[in-house]
């Protein structure tokens, strides 16, 4: 398989949020600002790479009928390890990203890639898939967060360009659905013309 195609497919063609519609629960919940979206994306990318690597290594030793519980245990262990290590050695990073870490366990993007890709592919392909998908996820979340922050708070990455309050609904959950809907429509149009 061409690894470059494998890497770039996560950005538009198989973007986890806009095309596969995977992991929408944390997507909608945490993207109230650009930084939050970015942080969640980076944390997910790390876990996705680790879990894809391990799953592709052990795929032949795990009987088919118990693969899902095994993958879940592997993913949950990685998430907990990331949380503990971050809390111990990078407390300020943990303060910024800590709330997203437990959300990764319930992110079906991680399980979806383990089940749908890494359990069938080689180690290298799985690693690159994890990285590409994770960065595609980060890109989608940062885009969603930026738009919501710009419309809802009049700022971007915390830098305020409109004084006072803006259209508050975009910070709230309904705003997440509205922006996501328009972005999906836009990406579908882009894929059609490409």
């Amino acid at each position, binding site marked *: 398989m061409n690894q470059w195609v494998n890497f770039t497919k996560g950005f538009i063609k198989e973007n986890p949020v806009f095309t596969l519609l995977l992991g929408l629960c944390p997507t909608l919940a945490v993207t109230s600002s650009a930084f939050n979206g970015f942080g969640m994306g980076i944390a997910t990318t790390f876990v996705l790479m680790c879990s894809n690597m391990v799953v592709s290594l052990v795929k032949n030793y795990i*009987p088919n009928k118990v693969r899902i519980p095994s993958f879940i245990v592997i993913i949950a262990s990685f998430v907990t390890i990331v949380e*503990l290590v971050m809390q111990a050695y990078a407390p300020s990073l943990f303060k910024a990203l800590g709330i997203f870490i437990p959300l990764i366990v319930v992110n079906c993007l991680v399980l979806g890639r383990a089940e749908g890709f890494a359990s069938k592919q080689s180690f290298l392909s799985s690693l690159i898939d994890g990285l590409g998908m994770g960065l595609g996820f980060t890109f989608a979340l940062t885009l969603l967060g930026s738009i919501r922050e710009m419309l809802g708070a009049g700022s971007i990455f915390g830098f305020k360009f409109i004084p006072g309050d803006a259209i508050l609904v975009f910070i709230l959950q309904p705003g997440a659905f509205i922006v996501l809907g328009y972005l999906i429509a836009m990406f579908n149009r882009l894929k059609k013309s490409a």
Partner: protein
Amino acid sequence: MAKVESSFKNMVITLFIVTLIASLSLGGIYNLTKGPIAVAKKKAQEAAIREVIPEFDELKTFSVAPDDGSDSLVFNQGFKAGELVGTAILSYSLKGYDPTPIKLMVGFLPGGVIDNTQVVQQKETPGLGTKLETPEFRNQFVNKNPKEFILKVKNDGGDIDAITAATISSRAFCEAVERAYVSYEKYTEDQK
């Protein structure tokens, strides 16, 4: 290598090994990180204390139980050259928008004037209630004496401008500061 067959024996053995490795590595990492996490938490607490009261070189920490039977609050008295310069009280409110309690460090100068406040823990709505942490909101409390300054949002007849669309969080913040003040006043009375 061929894939392992899904026989009963294989499945039991696989699940056992997977969970065994997971629990061993988690246990090991928990033990390794336990110490550093405790140190980091203590540092964060101390940083919050330093932010809400004037500079000190000695810290005295003790708990004070309020009259109404609710949880006791932790008092941190800062001394400089043996003189009391301020008291930082770790207060809380359960009335936030999220069930997780809002925890605040509230600093009082001797005499009961609020020096500063700092949010220690909160899980309010991102982008709305989380604005409790901004200086714009917290500065309203700086250098105010709760004797003549009502610690309530303006909707409730107080002196605090609530955050737009986050009145519940603002109200909870005020309640936590008020709780710290009541406890501080009672403690100062008892000392006399």
